[in-house]
């Protein structure tokens, strides 16, 4: 409890780290912060071209189908891989100054989260301008889905960042793990094509439900089955609590290991 209050006291540090990260990402480029919007927009163009001209699929408006799933996935995988390296990357601060160490992974995950929100602005613009329309009731569920995903991402990032301090290979191992994880989550394909005997595995994967919910809201324009999200929420809570305590334990020796 004391730790949580302390992290809250350091909210300005989280805020300024997030700001620094978002502003620093495209620093020095001509278009600067505009890249945050241009980047997803151009990606969308590429997917549209590739999947409507070359790799044609049965799924209608596949570019949108893929895109509404890919953006949340990128947030999650960036939180995991980038988050795992975040403390090592800030070792000068960690070794010299006291602050609650959780601030670093929290800031990293939050800045990835903000990046996702900004990408969603592009998605909404595309959806509205292409005349697809939105279901306002469904969109109201979006914050809940995002919060669940944020919890899951933060929990895993807390664990990964703390363990990476002691075991640097984890960062690279996670690079492969997230790639495999992406293909094990119905992002590029529909869950309906998954072989029956593999389904339990897919249902265990919290990202399956989260991605499914995003797609329900933005692609199918339906209110998602929040019960499917429940297991993700439970798992997110477990990860967050476990991550919190593991981090507390491991952070005691950060300064010596870095």
């Amino acid at each position: 409890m004391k730790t949580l209050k302390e992290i809250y006291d350091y909210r300005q540090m989280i805020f300024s780290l997030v700001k620094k990260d978002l502003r620093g990402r495209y620093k020095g480029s001509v278009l600067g912060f505009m890249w945050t919007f241009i980047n997803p927009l151009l990606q969308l163009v590429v997917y549209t071209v590739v999947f409507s001209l070359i790799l044609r699929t049965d799924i209608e408006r596949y570019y949108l189908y893929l895109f509404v799933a890919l953006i949340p996935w990128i947030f999650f995988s960036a939180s995991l891989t980038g988050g795992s390296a975040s403390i090592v990357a800030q070792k000068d601060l960690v070794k010299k100054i006291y602050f609650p160490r959780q601030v670093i992974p929290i800031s990293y995950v939050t800045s990835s989260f903000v990046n996702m929100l900004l990408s969603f602005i592009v998605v909404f613009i595309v959806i509205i301008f292409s005349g697809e329309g939105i279901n306002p009731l469904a969109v109201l569920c979006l914050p809940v889905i995002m919060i669940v995903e944020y919890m899951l991402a933060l929990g895993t990032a807390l664990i990964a960042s703390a363990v990476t301090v002691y075991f640097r290979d984890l960062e690279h191992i996670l690079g492969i793990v997230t790639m495999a994880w992406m293909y094990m989550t119905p992002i590029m394909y529909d869950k309906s094509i998954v072989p029956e005997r593999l389904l339990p595995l897919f249902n265990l994967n919290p990202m399956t439900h989260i991605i499914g919910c995003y797609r329900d809201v933005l692609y199918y324009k339906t209110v998602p089955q929040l019960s499917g999200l429940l297991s993700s929420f439970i798992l997110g809570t477990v990860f967050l609590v476990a991550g919190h305590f593991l981090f507390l334990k491991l952070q005691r020796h950060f300064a010596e290991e870095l």
Partner: protein
Amino acid sequence: MTKNETVIDVKNITKKFKIYMDKGSQLKERLLFRKRNRYEEREVLKGISFQVKKGEAVGLIGHNGCGKSTTLKLLTKIMYPDSGEIIMKGRISSLIELGAGFHPDMSGRENIYTNASIFGLTKKEIDARLDEIIAFSELEEFIDNPVRTYSSGMYMRLAFSVAINVDADILLIDEILAVGDTNFQTKCFNRLRELKAKGMTIIIVTHDLATIEKFCDRCVWINNGLIVHEGRSDEVVDAYLNFMNQKKVESETAPPEENSEPVTEEPQPENNDITDNNEIDYSANRFGLKYVEIKKAEMLNSENKNVRIFRTGERLSLKIHYHVNKPLDEYVFGFGFYTPEGECLYGNNTQLDRIKVNTEKTDGVVSVIIGNLPLLAGKYVLNVAVVDSDGTPMDFYRNYCEFEVVSESRNMGYFSIEHEWRI
């Protein structure tokens, strides 16, 4: 919080570090070379306890590696003790690393926000302090320029201004008061005094003993991970200086024979042919007709050891070993103490002291005993010489060797002069 309340309570803390011989942090290395992950455990702190009351300024001193910086890191919670407990009450700010998180491309103003946020200040709190921080740094004109355009002095001034305006209850300072120019330093110290008067508790780690004495009420001396002495600053500093001098003397005592060789290594030309004193090259480090030669000179301390380090007030005996090539009626032996810059501090010889030296021996020793060395701490140079009764140099050794004097006394200058104050 009332005065006299204990705000820092350090209870018997220990800390070990693992010193890896060959650290492998990759999976491959961990698995393949399990046995290679040998490490030594070094116990940096072996059980330290002390308490600090509200509004006190306490200095931590000790030589390098004694554990004082580790103690400070444990106080800031950058590291945690292996055993023992540290209880601290209030907000802690540290001046260990100045300018943490400074971004060179951002303006001074933006960096104040970033840096202060690392100390745990909220935006509101920073807003309230902003003007004071800028005024203290004296950087009003430059505050909206990117920090990369600052000189290092300006950078430090900005960083220090943020750190000192955090309004902590406890301030931890590590060896960083050498900030900016003298004026700014004075300003920083005045500010620290103000804060202290307001009840801020301050802990300083530094090698600058003068700072400790001037600023700290109490001082803790740590050696090899244990507290040796704790008490009033001047007393602890005295004891520490005394100990360090003793250590220095011990480590430099009994130098090998080479050390007693003259400082000038270049072979001296054999001037055996010189018979006329007009031909003597007085500018050389060693010159003379060599009718009598100085073989070596020894400097013995009170334990009769040939050393190059002495304490003020110690007994020093200088032994000049000579060899006679061509007997003279009278020999005049002399010595002189010089500064490394070549200024004569004291010089004397047997003739000036009205002592007649005539000897039949071809090899002998002349000693001069200084019962109570009056030189103060510093580096000095010894000259030794032998001349004839007319002052013609026979063997004149400039810069025969350097030696050092250490002292607990903080008098200034070269010599100690007996004195007494009457008030």
